[in-house]
């Protein structure tokens, strides 16, 4: 009996949500004036299966935008559109407009190499190359020919590691393998590697999901610092993390962008009931 009474309200909410299935119009403030990247009417298909439905969103300059939503709702897919990492998946097709400032990144003549130098990516699992710490960080500057002299390269490596607040931990073993670091250090190494090519935008797909709370705290600190210089889009499953690091939060639901609002607003007074249901933990 007791069980029943406890279950009832939840059931009601769930059915309500199903009934009020999202209309397709994003609520809140998906657009902004000072956009670094702007996406308009983006649809993404895997073969015939549509993973992203008509999403429009702006990411402002020096802004941190968090993307949250239940598993499989298309956060990674959307994020990977922003530097065309989806190109590596044969079946993936993207329509709509995605602009980096004035540059149409899906223009047929657009080369992905300079694009990815401008829009860097940090992945869910730390993936240092099986090279030395130094070579890991120097990898990007080398392939883009950013420097000619060893001295300049040293400088880039040091400053990147410093900005990723890893320098002090590794300065004595720059030439030992990057794979020998701890998970949290590896992830900071990957961040250092990404900022070494001085991108303008950094995309992070659940960068802390493989890390312990201490390493996570370090990375969150880092994100706050990086946002002074870079524009950041971060996918996360931790709502506390979204609340701590981001300026605006975007809530995705089944491939649709339901709500975008100031982070504070989303977590205190969400505009859409789907968002509310998600952040209060009633589903997801």
């Amino acid at each position, binding site marked *: 009996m007791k069980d029943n009474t406890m279950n009832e309200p939840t059931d009601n909410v769930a059915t309500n949500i199903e009934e009020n299935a999202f209309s397709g119009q994003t609520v809140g403030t998906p657009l902004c004036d000072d956009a670094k990247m702007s996406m308009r009417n983006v649809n993404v298909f895997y073969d015939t299966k549509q993973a992203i439905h008509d999403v429009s969103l702006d990411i402002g300059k020096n802004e941190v935008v968090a993307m949250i939503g239940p598993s499989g709702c298309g956060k990674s897919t959307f994020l990977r559109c922003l530097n065309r990492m989806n190109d590596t998946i044969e079946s993936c097709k993207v329509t709509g407009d995605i602009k980096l400032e004035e540059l149409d990144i899906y223009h047929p003549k657009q080369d992905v*190499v300079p694009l990815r*130098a401008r829009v860097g990516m940090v992945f869910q699992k730390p*993936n*240092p190359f*099986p090279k030395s710490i130094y070579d890991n960080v120097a*990898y990007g500057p080398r392939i883009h020919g950013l420097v000619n002299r060893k001295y300049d390269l040293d400088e880039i490596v040091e400053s990147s590691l410093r900005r990723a607040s890893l320098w002090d931990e590794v300065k004595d073993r720059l030439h030992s393998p990057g794979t020998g670091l701890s998970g949290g250090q590896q992830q900071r190494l990957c961040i250092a*590697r990404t900022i070494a*090519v001085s991108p303008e935008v950094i995309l992070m797909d659940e960068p802390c999901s493989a890390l312990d709370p201490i390493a996570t705290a370090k990375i969150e600190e880092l994100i706050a610092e990086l946002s002074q210089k870079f524009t950041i889009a971060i996918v996360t499953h931790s709502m506390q993390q979204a609340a701590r690091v981001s300026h605006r939060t975007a809530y995705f639901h089944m491939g649709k962008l339901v709500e975008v609002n100031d982070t504070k607003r989303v977590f205190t007074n969400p505009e859409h009931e789907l968002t509310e249901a998600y952040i209060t933990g009633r589903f997801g």
Partner: protein
Amino acid sequence: MDTSMLITSAFVLMAIAFVIGRARSLAIASDLGGPKALNSLPVYYGTLMAMWSGIPCLVLVALWSVVDDYAIAHIITQELPEQVKALPETELNLVLSLITNIAANNAMGLDAEPYVINSANRLIALQQTSNMALTVVCLSTAMILMVLVWLKISPKMKARIKVEKAFTNILLLCASIAIFTTAGIVLSVLFESIRFFQSVPIHEFLFGLEWSPQMAIREDQVGGSGAFGAVPLFVGTMLISAIAMTIAVPAGLMAAIYLSEYARPKVRTTVKPLLEVLAGIPTVVYGFFAALTVAPFIKESGGLFGLDVSSESALAAGLVMGIMIIPFVSSLSDDVINAVPQSLRDGSLGLGATKSETIKQVVIPAALPGIVGGVLLAVSRAIGETMIVVMAAGLAANLTLNPTESVTTVTVQIVTLLVGDQEFNSPKTLSAFALGLVLFTITLALNYIALMVVKKYREQYE
């Protein structure tokens, strides 16, 4: 009952024992409230009983058939007349085989001496007795054991554990057959080599520069006194393997990179098996190809440049061997390249590296240890290859690094030393074992290193 009948009846007994054992356990269980009361499932009791009744019986048959012949031959020899027993060993053996033949064919050798016919009859009688005895001993052992197990079956009996243990031991036995065989081969090669080194000093063999194993078999024969310096063979082997690897490694590696990184799934699923077909072609066929197509072609094209290429050349053999090894290298490299995590590629691509930069700077370095392991395995394959070299590179033990000349290899010499009429104890024949030992040592070392390298690489991405 002859042996095959006996073995068949042992199996029939096992089947019966299984049924009885199972039924017995069920019967006991039904008094105690069903099969749940048993320690193990009824089949285990059946299996246990079948094993006890069958296996000792079969082992007995096997042992008996080994000992049997010797024992009977011994008795027959003892009973021969004194003057026959005094004959030299070879003649005595002749008499014995005559007796065996007469007994086996049941043909009364008309012209045979009476004592031979007597012995033949005696042999037949002994064999019959032995068979009778074996049948009785075997079947009664099986029955007695069956009854004993039947009596011992109880709900507490840990039949399952015993059966499992027995199966483990049977599997172990099968595994050790391979190991013992290898050990046997190694030991026999080793002993024959030691005999060889008694007539030819080991340093002369390993460091001598001349190889001409022809020896006078009889004292009065004219012929070389034999020179067993194996260096020309080692150099020839290395030369041909090196040529083969210069073909196989780049081609195989590139094929692997293409297949694993660039090819569409459809291309990959068709091309990969096709490449592996190359590995299935018998080496004799490659040998034809080398001797009849490639070698003349090289000779002619060498002629165009004014080079004097002999019609059997290291180059022809090496080239074809290289082609043969391509699938070997490519499929091993393909495996390790595929084992490089996609996240590494994403990381590199995400930094703006192109596909080829990613492959050169991240994928290949990450896969390198595994690739090296694969290449080492391929090298040991090349060193051990015989047919192609026999057919295309010739038999002349020239000490040269010139690929257009005819050379010979360790394996080819082993073959030529052992085919044809040979006196077994001559150094010429024994040298084949010494060569085999060297070959075995080298390939074993290479394989060991390769496996260690590959294993280390595997652990890296656990």
